[in-house]
């Protein structure tokens, strides 16, 4: 059933149609990435949307951001179930799960994926991105979500949230 699209890690800067090379976020992200990639294999991230919501703009942008930060992306895309995500994590030996949520389903869907991970005996952090009210973030992190990213998060913040989810896992996970 799975037909993911794979994005291999890259260090070049695709799609930059500006000759202007600002010494800001992007530079430091690739720097960190190259340091990291010398020491260990790239982080493998499964990206998916659970449920019916079709807003995939953010998830696609995140896929390219992570690729540019030298990670490997297994892009499952839309209409995934907890089962299909878990299957992909097992099959692909993924390090992190990134889920995009845009229609207020996060409080129902997050516990389901966490439970499914526990049932499968997997210790893989979950990062959520999308429209999540500020006041729900504590609830989500308490239940075991590693990080929540908002619209407007920079490439650096996205990459750091993924790396942070591996480095600083909450105690008890």
């Amino acid at each position, binding site marked *: 059933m799975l*037909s993911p699209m794979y994005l291999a890690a890259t260090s070049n800067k695709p799609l930059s149609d500006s000759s202007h090379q600002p010494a*800001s976020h992007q530079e430091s992200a690739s720097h960190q990435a190259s340091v990291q990639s010398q020491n260990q294999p790239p982080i493998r991230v499964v990206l998916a949307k659970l449920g019916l919501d*079709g807003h995939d703009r953010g998830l696609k*942008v995140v896929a390219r951001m992570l690729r540019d930060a030298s990670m490997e992306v297994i892009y499952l*895309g839309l209409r995934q179930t907890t089962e299909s995500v878990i299957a992909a994590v097992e099959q692909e030996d993924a390090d992190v799960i990134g889920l995009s949520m845009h229609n207020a*389903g996060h409080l129902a869907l997050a516990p389901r994926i966490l439970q499914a991970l526990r049932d499968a005996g997997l210790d893989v952090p979950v990062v959520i991105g999308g*429209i999540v009210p500020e006041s729900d973030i504590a609830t989500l992190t308490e239940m075991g979500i590693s990080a929540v990213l908002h*619209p*407007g998060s920079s490439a650096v913040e996205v990459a750091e949230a993924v790396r942070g989810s591996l480095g600083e896992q909450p105690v008890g996970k």
Partner: protein
Amino acid sequence: MTSNRDQFTTMSGVPVDPVYGEGPLPGEFPYTRGIHPDMYRSRLWTMRMFAGFGTAVDTNGRFKEILRHGGTGLSTAFDMPTLMGRDSDDAVWSTGEVGRAGVAVDTLADMEDLFADIDLSAVSTSMTINGPAIVALAKYIAVGDQAGVPRDQLSGTIQNDILKEYQAQKEYIYPPRPSMRIITDMMRFTTAEMPRWHPVSISGYHIREAGATAAQELGFTLANGFAYVEAAQAAGLAVDDFANRLSFFFNSHSDFFEEIGKFRAARRIWATWMKQRYGATEERSLKCRFHTQTAGVSLTAQQPEINIARVALQAMAAALGGTQSLHTDAYDEALALPTEKAARIALRTQQIVAHETGAANVADPLGGSPYVEWITDEMERRASEIFDHLLELGNGSMLEGVYEAVDNGWFVGRIADSAYRFEREVNDGTRIIVGVNAFTEGNDNNGDNLLRIDQATEDLQLKRLATVKQARDDEAVSRRLAAVRVAAQDPTKNLMLPVIDAVKAYATEGEICDALADVFGRYVEQAVV
């Protein structure tokens, strides 16, 4: 809302003419400057605000409120399961999503509740639904039939624009070709029986929200429009019999003049192509009439109150661009569904544009400006490049070209490229978004007063559905679902008729969509990043 003033003056009392500058004037082919000679002087744009939440009974209450306050147009937002052809009790797909982003409509009973005590011959109803549109329209007709409202008096619009679903919004069920067959069946049915119904609203809004540029929104949307025209002609309909009931739905984003150029170019291209390529002769077939919504994607979660300013400017662009109706977004929509207060401020914002700014006094007030005329031409030129590519893919057929570009991922790839380019510009600081990558003081406080839909809605809807299923004649339901399958296998049959029969037996939306999927299959997107 109508304005009946005899004389139009500036705030300082200076009399102003209905239009300035050279022809072709507004109301004259190719309608670059507007579709009516005096535009908003005789009739302001319709302020059509989108609503829907919870159960049908909840939304019915909101509808009646709108009508009590003088509104005549209702606009229905459905929840995700309803939009995807899934019933509320679908344990795999619907749990947690029932009644959240709109109203849940499973069976005819819900549609009866939705329009209870509302005279369907006196209102116009817009239904924003695509994949299962045929089921929603059948239910609306059935409610009208029950109330004794003749079908030719039902007035409204169903979005029913499946092509942009494969390109952007992703609320499809079946593959493109059978979906197109359903749509041409609906066009044929409404052309014969429902002259006041708009069977397709060709929508660029979602294409833009997914990341397209203004020129891509324009090019993809009009190409889709031409594809529907070609499909209807191929189904034996005469262009002047249906083209006057095609309408459009565009986005109004933040680059003020580019948006205005896009709206002006849309009218010119549509009129020219309808006349020259498709042989339309009636004036109404040539006029590109459109609804506009301000750009939801431009709203920031950071300092959400400043979104009010963004929405005001986007609303102004829509007015200066000559829209026929307008929805203004609420400032808190980057955080959640709008609160009542935020929705009211959004409506007030367009009322200020309409009544205080003087923008409605003169048709196409920016026409003749060298920059506005240039960017109008430039939008047209860039859209033409898109048409050329699609016609080449389709060997001269826009319909085949669009199918091909859906199949080979061209649309989604172009949209993803544009979205990523924009994101990188924001990231590297070459594009400033206030509150996001600049002027961030004050970002610490947001999201206090958000609208929340509680679990009770879902429980209530599940109970409602169970009751309806218990009371109906299951044998009649399976008989009529079988008839839907049979008609689906025979392209000479019009699917509207068996679908109307099925909803009248209280078959659920999910059951009818499943029956069609048995024959048509389900579309699975090839992921493109």
